[in-house]
């Protein structure tokens, strides 16, 4: 019999029971909760008179709606609808007995950043959150996936979820990345290769020497965007780096359990002879810094490339999609990526707001100034603790001196639910994960890039190859 994949192992070890058609009742170890996708779930519990099954498995934080300007945060949220939603989370957590890092807590931040930071994300767990970027936590050999609000309620009420097993897919990135090429470029290149639906129905494991060489932060960036390739689950096998990262974090196993935990975690990798339903291999050395040009993450090219021409596309549905994207983005086929001027720069989001990202961006910015045509350049750290550490290292000064704004943690302009947004037609170099129409504000034009590339664009005023910078 063939060996098991990491996903197979985790799926099996968390199956409580299986229905005749193969639907499994899966036990969920950790449930992360935020303000946007939970109010209707708590309301459902209240209406049915149900309790939370296991309070200690849940951890909540407001992130999507919170202001990122310090003064606004102290004054309270001015948008009444958003304020009610954040208050609803506070109240629901109190009523149902769930731990919450509220807006003024130093540990507050983007839900996918604080899970690992606190050690609330552990290897071997099943972890869910009412948010598609939950795949981020898969970097720890965790089976993590996003769910809708009905499922949030289901997990709150039963600690379980009904799941059909997905197929297995492995993405191998072999070799060494070039200087200036980061995890973000790797994952954009993967999505460019397999398309935004390439991973639909699959649990995706990222493997190969380039992934092994990557830091935990880089692996989180890659897993974060598995959903942009259609895969609900993205994961990386556990190794020494995983274990070192987890050690000593507030929610990590206590000393008396540590060795026992590590012994179990070391088994969290696919067996040598495991068979994947689909495998894709990329050559790390060939990956260049990436820039998206359209309104789907698969619409991506290398920074030294050009905006593609729909006329060259043989599939008519695709060609018309490309043309719609070009019209929306205000770009012309054949235009050089390096000629595209940007209006705003956003460094943040659960993809790229960790300390390593901020350090990388600062290294590019240091001693330089933001170009005159840039209306706003901002850094939004992923959590209060990251912000604090960055300030200790003096990184905030580097950004502020260059003309950047240095903000409080939250989702911010990744989805523009708060005041941070683009005006219609404005163009942004963004380290976030989605370039959909209207994502960063109505009529907004988003180009996804790495933190280093976003920084270089801020200085140059247009896209530029950070490798020559």
């Amino acid at each position, binding site marked *: 019999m063939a060996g098991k994949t990491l996903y197979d192992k985790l799926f099996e070890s968390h199956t*409580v029971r299986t*229905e*005749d*058609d193969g639907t499994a*009742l899966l*036990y969920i*170890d950790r449930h992360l909760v935020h303000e*946007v*996708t939970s*109010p*209707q779930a708590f*309301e459902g519990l209240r209406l049915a008179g*149900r309790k939370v*099954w296991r309070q*200690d498995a849940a951890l909540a934080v407001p992130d*999507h709606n919170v202001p990122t300007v310090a003064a606004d945060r102290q004054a309270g949220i001015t*948008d009444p*609808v*958003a304020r*009610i*939603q954040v208050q609803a989370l506070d109240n629901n957590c109190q009523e149902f007995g769930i731990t919450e890092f509220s807006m003024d807590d130093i540990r507050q931040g983007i839900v996918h950043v604080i899970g690992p930071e606190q050690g609330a994300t552990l290897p071997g767990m099943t972890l869910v959150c009412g948010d*598609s970027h*939950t795949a981020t936590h898969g970097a720890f050999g965790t089976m993590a996936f*996003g*769910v*809708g*609000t*009905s499922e949030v*309620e*289901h997990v709150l*009420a*039963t*600690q*379980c979820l*009904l799941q059909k097993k*997905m197929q297995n897919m492995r993405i191998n990135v072999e070799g060494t990345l070039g200087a200036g090429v980061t995890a973000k470029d790797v994952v954009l290149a993967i999505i460019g290769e397999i398309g*935004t*639906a390439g991973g*639909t129905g699959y649990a995706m494991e990222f493997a190969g020497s380039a992934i092994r060489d990557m830091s935990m932060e880089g692996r989180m960036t890659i897993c974060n965007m598995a959903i942009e390739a*259609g895969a*609900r689950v993205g994961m990386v096998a556990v190794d020494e780096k995983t274990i070192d990262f987890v050690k000593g974090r507030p929610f*990590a196993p*206590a000393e008396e*359990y540590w060795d026992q*935990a590590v012994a*179990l975690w070391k088994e969290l990798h696919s067996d040598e002879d495991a068979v994947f339903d689909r495998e894709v291999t990329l050559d790390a050395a060939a990956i260049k810094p990436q820039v998206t040009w359209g309104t*789907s993450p698969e619409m991506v090219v290398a920074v030294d490339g050009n905006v593609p021409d729909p006329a060259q596309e043989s599939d008519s*549905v*695709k060609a018309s*999609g490309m043309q719609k994207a070009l019209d929306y983005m205000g770009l012309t086929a054949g235009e050089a990526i390096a000629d595209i001027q940007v209006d705003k720069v956003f460094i943040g989001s659960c993809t790229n707001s960790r300390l390593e990202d901020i350090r990388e961006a600062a290294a590019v910015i240091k001693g330089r100034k933001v170009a005159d045509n840039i209306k706003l350049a901002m850094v939004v750290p992923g959590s209060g603790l990251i912000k604090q550490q960055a300030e200790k290292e003096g990184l905030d000064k580097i950004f502020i001196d260059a003309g950047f704004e240095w903000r409080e943690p939250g989702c911010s302009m990744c*989805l*523009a*639910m708060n005041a941070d947004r683009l005006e*219609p037609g404005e163009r942004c170099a963004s380290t976030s994960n*989605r370039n*959909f*129409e*209207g*994502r960063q504000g*109505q009529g907004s034009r988003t180009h996804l890039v790495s933190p280093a590339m976003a920084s270089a664009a801020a200085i140059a005023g247009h896209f530029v190859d950070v490798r020559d910078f």
Partner: protein
Amino acid sequence: MEKFTKHTGIVAPLDRPNVDTDAIIPKQYLKSIKRSGFGPNAFDDWRYLDPGEPGMDNATRRINPDFVLNQSPYDQATILLARENFGCGSSREHAVWALDDFGFRSVIAPSFADIFYNNSFKNGLLPIVLDAEIVDELFKRVNAKKGYQLSIDLEAQKVITEEGDEFAFEVDGFRKYCLLNGLDDIGLTLQHADEIRAYEAKRKQAEPWLFA
């Protein structure tokens, strides 16, 4: 949850691939803490020419006459015909609530994003996957005749055209059962509470650090 057994209705064609959940319901509407009332803002950026905010009277906004759902009889449509990878993007169930609130009972496409597909079943909205060629053929027929209707028979797992052509579709047995009977998943799962407790006890032995 509303039951789904058989349904016949007008089909609205939405001819673009990768329709994402940000397009189905833009983020400003996610601030609502309710489950209902999203219908007037379904596809907000495509449906209206002016920017929308929660709390606005949508009746006073400038509508985009070119958008299919603003045209008669598609404003009465209950079946949405779409292209590949429908519902990609965020996990927001608000997208399903918006389609449901608009009046849709089913979406037909060559493929769906996983989370959207899953969320649909929880709300009595039936997502149907048909081959790309069949979807293409349906687009042709829908475009050729305003108000073209399809019938859906969930029990028999068939989409039936006006001409009497039948197209079979797949659906998981368990999901079909829940939808046909309008059953609430949580109630079903809680029938297995003892098994969940037994499982927990076992895990607590093996991985005590997971239980605070």
